[in-house]
């Protein structure tokens, strides 16, 4: 690790950045100071809107359009970035400082080969010849453990996997041997099993090339594996900064402590029931296809009354499609489904209104699930009128009851979704589903767009509602922490098939089915040294 005597690569002092919103400037970064030495990795942790990316980009001397620096200084190896002209700053980027974005898919141009894009800056501004740059790129591909490093660069972005593309982007950032790299949530868009590989590669090259790095993430477990020090940002201010071990052991600021909210939720104990639950939904031999591609095959699934079944799997495993088939949004190609003992018609149009009422969906993104031009009253009130024929005072009374159930109140009824926070929006979506008085609610990643504290609140509320109303949940998620907190039974999916299902305790305890084991092993622990153990385990 870097000693305190080595000169600072990056020194940010009392940085203030303002952004223009509608007609006035508001401060989004309020006096942030950070120091970074050679070979050091600083984790920048915080929730959406905390100003992490803004600070990260400012370290590159870049401000987003509509933002301006109103004070402070950003010194990169002694050069004041805020004082030099834009042209000089531009020349530094890619050569002295580099950036790795969250989505490599969006960052690479799909019509050019990887090698051309990776070596572009090195040839253009880095003063390397094309042959030298390509040689360096191949060395980086090797260091990043990419397959077939000699020929990897000849491929187009769509010919490599998401994890490989993310590593290719790291290669692009490292090509000029920069002094500082900013990683902006580089693994957030990846599946957990892929995330581990990318994390291992990133850590390896940082150590090998001795570069200073800022690692931006909202995931404390990830930052614990990679950073030496962590700065926790909230509302554009650093609320806590400490070495990683210290912050993991004794988080001091209440806000930092709240990042453990979901992690610290008690795992619900599925009461061991002597008599099996009355089945609400049972699915047998279900299949579905897009064209000739089989997205679901041989799905057997049972959900009991008042039971929470968690459906886990990586992206592309078919878990969301299964939810859509049950909801009637996609017709199955094989198999049958029984709901409360009666056959469940495959198509939406064949289902009577009463049946539609009994199965409700809550979506991942409340932003698109709520009509932006309808008030909360119209959104939640509509099912009341449609299913129960409630109008006027009776409807209003029930509406307020529902809003209270989801921990909102009557004052929210007149608001538009745009005037609510992310957590409040998701609560409105939940209230809309509850308004139908359903027996089964399909929850499709309903907490993954929310911050940790809000996630914990929403999960706690969902557990309470289930106990009060006796409703069943099909909880589709990729987050095993959420599963631990809420599920009775777990169904693990891979490549459109169910690989394992059973009581949560049994699925999560060894011995594991191989894929489940790999999935569980890939989720970073909220502790320093987890990645070291993985690497050590592999070497052994």
């Amino acid at each position, binding site marked *: 690790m870097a000693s305190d005597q080595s000169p600072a690569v990056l020194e940010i002092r009392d940085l203030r950045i303002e952004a223009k919103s509608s007609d006035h400037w508001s401060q989004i970064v309020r006096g942030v100071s950070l120091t970074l030495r050679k070979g050091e990795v600083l984790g920048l942790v915080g929730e959406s809107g905390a100003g992490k990316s803004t600070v990260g980009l400012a370290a590159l001397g870049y401000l987003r359009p509509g933002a301006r620096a109103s004070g402070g200084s950003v010194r990169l190896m002694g050069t004041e970035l805020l004082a030099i002209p834009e042209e000089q700053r531009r020349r530094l980027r890619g050569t002295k400082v580099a950036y790795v974005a969250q989505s490599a898919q969006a960052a690479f141009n799909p019509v050019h080969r990887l090698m051309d894009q990776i070596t572009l800056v090195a040839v253009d501004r880095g003063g390397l010849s094309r042959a030298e740059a390509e040689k360096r790129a191949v060395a980086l591909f090797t260091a990043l453990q990419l397959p077939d490093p000699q020929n990897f660069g000849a491929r187009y972005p769509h010919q490599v996997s998401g994890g490989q593309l993310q590593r290719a982007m790291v290669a692009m950032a490292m090509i000029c041997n920069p002094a500082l790299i900013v990683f902006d949530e580089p693994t957030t868009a990846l599946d957990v099993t892929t995330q581990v590989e990318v994390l291992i590669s990133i850590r390896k090259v940082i150590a090998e090339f001795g570069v200073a790095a800022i690692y931006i993430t909202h995931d404390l477990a990830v930052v614990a594996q990679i950073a030496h020090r962590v700065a926790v940002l909230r509302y554009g201010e650093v609320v806590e900064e400490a070495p990683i071990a210290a912050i993991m052991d004794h988080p001091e600021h209440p806000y930092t402590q709240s990042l453990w909210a979901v992690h610290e939720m008690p795992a619900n104990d599925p009461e061991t029931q002597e008599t099996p639950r009355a089945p609400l939904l049972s699915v047998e031999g279900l299949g579905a296809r897009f064209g000739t591609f089989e997205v679901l095959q041989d799905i057997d699934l049972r959900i009991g009354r008042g039971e929470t079944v968690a459906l886990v799997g990586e992206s592309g495993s078919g878990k969301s499609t299964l939810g859509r088939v049950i909801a009637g949004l996609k017709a199955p190609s094989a198999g049958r489904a029984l709901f409360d003992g009666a056959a469940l018609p495959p198509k939406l149009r064949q289902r009577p209104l009463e049946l539609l009422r009994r199965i409700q969906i809550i979506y991942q993104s409340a932003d*698109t699930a709520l009509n932006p031009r309808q008030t909360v009253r119209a959104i939640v009130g509509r099912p009341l009128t449609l299913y129960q024929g409630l109008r006027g005072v009776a409807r209003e009374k029930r509406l307020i009851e529902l809003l209270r159930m989801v921990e909102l109140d009557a004052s929210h009824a007149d608001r538009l979704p745009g005037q609510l926070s992310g957590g409040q929006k998701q609560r409105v979506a939940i209230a809309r589903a509850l308004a139908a008085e359903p027996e089964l609610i399909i929850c499709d990643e309903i907490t993954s767009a929310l911050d940790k504290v809000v996630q914990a609140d929403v999960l706690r509320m969902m557990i309470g509602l289930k106990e009060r109303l006796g409703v069943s949940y099909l909880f589709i998620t990729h987050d095993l922490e959420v599963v631990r907190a809420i599920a009775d039974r777990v169904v693990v999916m891979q490549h459109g098939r169910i690989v394992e299902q059973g009581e949560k305790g049994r699925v999560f305890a060894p011995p594991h089915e191989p894929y489940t084991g790999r999935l569980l092993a890939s989720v970073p622990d909220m502790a320093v040294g987890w990645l070291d153990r993985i690497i050590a385990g592999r070497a052994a």
Partner: protein
Amino acid sequence: MDQSIDARPATPSRLTRARRLLATAPFTARLGMVLLAIYAFVAIFAPWIAPYGEVEVVSRIPFDGWSAEHLLGTDQLGRDFLSRLIFGARNSISIALVTTLISFGIGCLLGVFSALIGGFVDQAISRFVDALMSVPDLIFILMILSIFGNSIPNLILIIAVLTSTRFFRISRAAALNVASLDFVEAARVRGENLLWISVHEVFPNVLPLILSELGMRFCFIFLSIAALSFLGVGIQPPMAEWGSMVRDNAALINMGDITPLIPAASIALLAIAVNFVVDWLLNRVSGLNEEG
């Protein structure tokens, strides 16, 4: 932006919002609005403003020059030119307005339906609309009017149908985007019918985009009517209409009199005023939306 910050205060009243909106309008938009207000005033109060009747022959001298008695002189039949101009505003603007609204109704409803239903129905309607759009409007109108006869209801109907193709295209495109959003799917799963989804879920979200088109189409309809009248197949005499006033008095231009150009200028000014306002609305729609 920040999830944990508590929500903004509730919606300010409509009046405050309208006033705030007006305060941020650029000079051109304000000018456009003032001009439109003047046009509307003249159109509504024409009988009280005009010094003489619409078809009243007030002078025995046709093409009389400007005088204190007849501010803009008289036309080819000895009617007061200023009075005809004022009544012309009333006729032209009201017909154009009705036509715009009808075409707006037909086009939007079909467009949103088409986007929501998709498949064969969408293809059939879209190709039919393409076929309609492939024939130049003016020629189409002339053809239809010569078959079904030349009356104001016919004129309104044919122009409305042709213009509705534009509304169809834009509302369909906008509705396609909205129809893929989760709240529309949620409404389907809830068991709502097509009409309800169109009117309550989709339409309010595509309206801002179409509103700007509305102003633009009004201009074009106005110009079509004027052009048709100028050709002699639009609004028929003795009804006053700006397009036909230009044609009827065109001979005066040869004598160095600019009077016939005044109705033409009125048309141009109205088109400019509407465009000023529409431009500003378009910018607001494409730029930052208040409701995010």
